[in-house]
């Protein structure tokens, strides 16, 4: 059960690992010495797992401030001869793309593996871009494992290959690899190399145009060597049921597991399994296509393998019909239904609709919501009151984090959500063109450090009248409370400086900075009114910071130091069934009884007490006397 135990178990142990833990183990087996990441679903557990074992192994593991810094840092370690990994979610690679596109020019020294976890179906992302295209754009080979065992094995192999080729490798697991737990057999651990030295070679590492032109030519030549190195990639590239001719299925990444299961159902056609979608190994593919007349490519998202396959067939003048997206489709992740339909249609087999039951009953939706005790609830509640009482027309320019959930009723305070840090830049544009509307950028602490600061500097420099509301809950909450520069601790639990957001804002030149406690609704509302009035009157940016710990962290600390959570209750005789606490404040710990009066579920209440403030009838009270130390756990 204990992650630490499984991840460090002896070679040949059979363990249950999540794909991301398997990648972490692969890094350990490869003797990696440096790992950096910015948290992002579905990639977070890679570096989270490594952080837990960092001091034991003596390796450096960090949460970087963003993906660009994570990749640059890993590159710095690699060119100093320490094997390094940078991990991120797929959209994180957009942030790191500037570094990626040039790293291929210089190449690397010790192995450098960039893991970008893809999220087809957008289970927790704003888009489902296919990062295999980044491989093409940047001349970086792409590996996509199909299950946790391969995720581990291929991570190790990627380090060896990267080092052999002096070239970065991009590894792209999807949600169904990263977040699938399965049986994994462990391999040998290589003792990590954690220290190295940078040997100067400035015609290689200094990308001034004269050097870059030279390196560009070298890169094109190197690419053919890289291509060849993917030709021998057994068993991760392999031809199954080779004795079967005429028809073949090609599948890459997690789609392979679906294709394989369906292939067994329909009678085991030739199945070409690919783990190297870019560059697609030509000789291997041609071997797979011997005596084949038609091929179906089963892959998620864009036709990356399909288009390369068509190119190979075209170049060789073969008469093989290639299909893919016309049967499989583009959007969303692979499912057995989808693979079955595509493969059966391609083979001309009938599609049997699986019978399933459906109840004739109307069910309420259950979207995710702010946790009981979440300080964001108080912030959004107070912000709405402030905006209403000033009779402003707000534009809520939102951002990526738990507070994105403010898009839902009853808050409705996220009008725009684009990408990390986007809230401030977008508000800047809104401010300069909108009339009578007040742009309010809403951003969390981790996102502020990640990509919010340049936007804020821009707002000061270009005199943008916006309110920037920073929801500082002292952690990267959405991905599971990873520490950030507001937390005072590093990924491995060491104490470090807190980077004070108010001081950052003041240093940039914001003249109006307020810090409020979102558990105090009245004070919060008044302070937000003051900041908003300033923006409207002075036509300058202001920063408001809601400072309160993430409820999950607060409760965890309380339990650890044995502080009893002061559970609240509704006084039956005072409650008038007005519904403010469960409809307007909408805490998931507050339920409605048949008589419409409120009732607080003790197992869910976290004792924040904000509902008591919102109750106009003074009907919500703590059950017991509150521990004196209670406030301290929320700091």
């Amino acid at each position, binding site marked *: 059960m204990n992650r630490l135990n499984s991840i460090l178990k002896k070679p040949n142990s059979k363990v249950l690992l999540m794909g991301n833990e398997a990648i972490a183990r692969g890094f350990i087996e490869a003797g990696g010495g440096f790992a950096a990441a910015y948290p992002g679903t579905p990639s977070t557990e890679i570096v989270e797992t490594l952080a837990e074992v960092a001091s034991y192994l003596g390796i450096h593991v960090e949460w970087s401030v963003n993906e660009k810094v994570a990749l640059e840092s890993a590159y710095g370690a690699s060119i100093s001869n320490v094997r390094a990994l940078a991990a991120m979610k797929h959209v994180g690679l957009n942030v790191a793309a500037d570094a990626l596109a040039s790293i291929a020019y210089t190449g690397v020294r010790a192995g450098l593996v960039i893991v970008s976890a893809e999220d087809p179906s957008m289970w927790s992302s704003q888009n489902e871009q296919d990062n295999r295209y980044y491989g093409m754009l940047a001349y970086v080979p792409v590996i996509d494992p199909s299950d946790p065992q391969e995720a581990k094995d291929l991570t190790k192999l990627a380090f060896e290959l990267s080092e052999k080729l002096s070239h970065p490798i991009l590894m792209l697991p999807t949600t169904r690899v990263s977040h699938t737990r399965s049986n994994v057999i462990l391999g040998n651990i290589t003792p990590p190399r954690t220290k190295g030295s940078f040997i100067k070679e400035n015609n290689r590492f200094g990308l001034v145009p004269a050097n870059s032109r030279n390196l560009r030519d070298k890169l094109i030549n190197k690419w053919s060597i890289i291509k060849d190195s993917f030709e021998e990639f057994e068993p991760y590239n392999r031809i199954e049921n080779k004795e079967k001719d005429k028809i073949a299925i090609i599948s890459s990444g997690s789609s392979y597991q679906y294709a394989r299961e369906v292939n067994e159902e329909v009678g085991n056609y030739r199945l070409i399994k690919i783990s190297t979608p870019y560059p697609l190994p030509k000789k291997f593919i041609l071997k797979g296509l011997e005596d084949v007349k038609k091929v179906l490519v089963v892959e998620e998202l864009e036709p990356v393998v399909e288009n390369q396959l068509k190119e190979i067939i075209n170049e060789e003048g073969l008469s093989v019909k290639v299909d893919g997206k016309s049967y499989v489709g583009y959007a969303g992740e692979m499912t057995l239904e989808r693979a079955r339909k595509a493969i059966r249609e391609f083979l001309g087999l009938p599609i049997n609709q699986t019978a399933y039951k459906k*109840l004739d009953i109307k069910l309420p939706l*259950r979207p995710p919501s702010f946790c009981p005790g979440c300080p964001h609830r108080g912030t959004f509640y107070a912000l709405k009151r402030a905006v209403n009482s000033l009779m402003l027309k707000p534009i809520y320019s939102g951002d990526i984090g738990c507070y994105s959930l403010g898009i839902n009723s009853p808050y409705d305070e996220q009008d725009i959500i684009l990408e990390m840090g986007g809230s401030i830049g977008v508000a800047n544009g809104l401010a300069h063109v909108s009339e009578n509307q007040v742009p309010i950028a809403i951003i969390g602490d981790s996102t502020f450090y990640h990509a919010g600061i340049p936007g804020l500097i821009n707002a000061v420099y270009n005199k943008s009248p916006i309110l920037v509301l920073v929801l500082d809950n002292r952690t990267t909450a959405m991905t599971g409370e990873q520490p950030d520069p507001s937390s005072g601790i590093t990924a491995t639990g060491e104490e470090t400086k807190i980077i004070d957001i108010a001081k950052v804002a003041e240093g940039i030149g914001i003249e109006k900075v307020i810090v409020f406690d979102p558990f105090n609704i009245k004070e919060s509302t008044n302070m937000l009114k003051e900041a908003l009035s300033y923006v409207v009157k002075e036509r300058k940016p202001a920063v408001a910071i809601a400072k309160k710990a993430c409820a999950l962290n607060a409760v965890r600390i309380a339990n650890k130091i044995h502080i009893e959570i002061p559970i609240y209750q509704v006084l039956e005789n005072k409650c008038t069934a007005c519904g403010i606490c469960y409809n307007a404040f909408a805490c998931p710990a507050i339920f409605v009884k048949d008589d419409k009066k409120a009732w607080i579920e003790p197992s869910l209440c976290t004792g924040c007490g904000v509902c008591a403030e919102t109750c106009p009838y003074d009907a919500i009270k703590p059950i017991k006397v509150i521990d004196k130390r209670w406030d301290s756990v929320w700091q």
Partner: protein
Amino acid sequence: MAMKSKLNIVISGVGGQGIVTLARIIGEAAVKNDVKVLIAETHGLSQRGGSVEVHVRLGNVYAPLVPKGEADVLLSMELIETARNIDYLNTNGLVISSDVILRPPIPGVKIPKKDEIIKEFEKNNIRYYLVPTKELAEKIGNYQSENMILLGSLYKYSEINKFIDMDSIKDSIKTMRNPEINLKAFELGSNL
């Protein structure tokens, strides 16, 4: 009778109810029995009190997700979520569900009553076991052990016992925090 070659379980509930842990215990036990297991989770937004599904597949399986209409068992920590996920069940599938209903925190939301849901199960000839997980958890003094009570019921009522032996499950539970209470909960659920 030939042993079934695979078992598809869909586990549903509400974020925070311990569903991921429940699935992980099954997974650990499967590995101990050298049985292939795939557990597909979706993290991120679903942790924040939203609907959660975890797919568990055992035996001769490759793809991590269970298709609609192919789950042998729908195991659920909350009754509205049970109703929502009924379409995963195969025609002979079995529901093992907590009888707990949790109101989604949406203004003015209307929720079905327990009886209405049960009536629908019967109308559709669905085989079901309702487990009073909350009541039982209160009895052993720990409302965070509802998931282990439900796991006990899964072991008792479903064919999972043909893939995994009980000792392996108990060994996995022993590695949890509060092993005594969780073992007690598992035993309570398997002796209903």
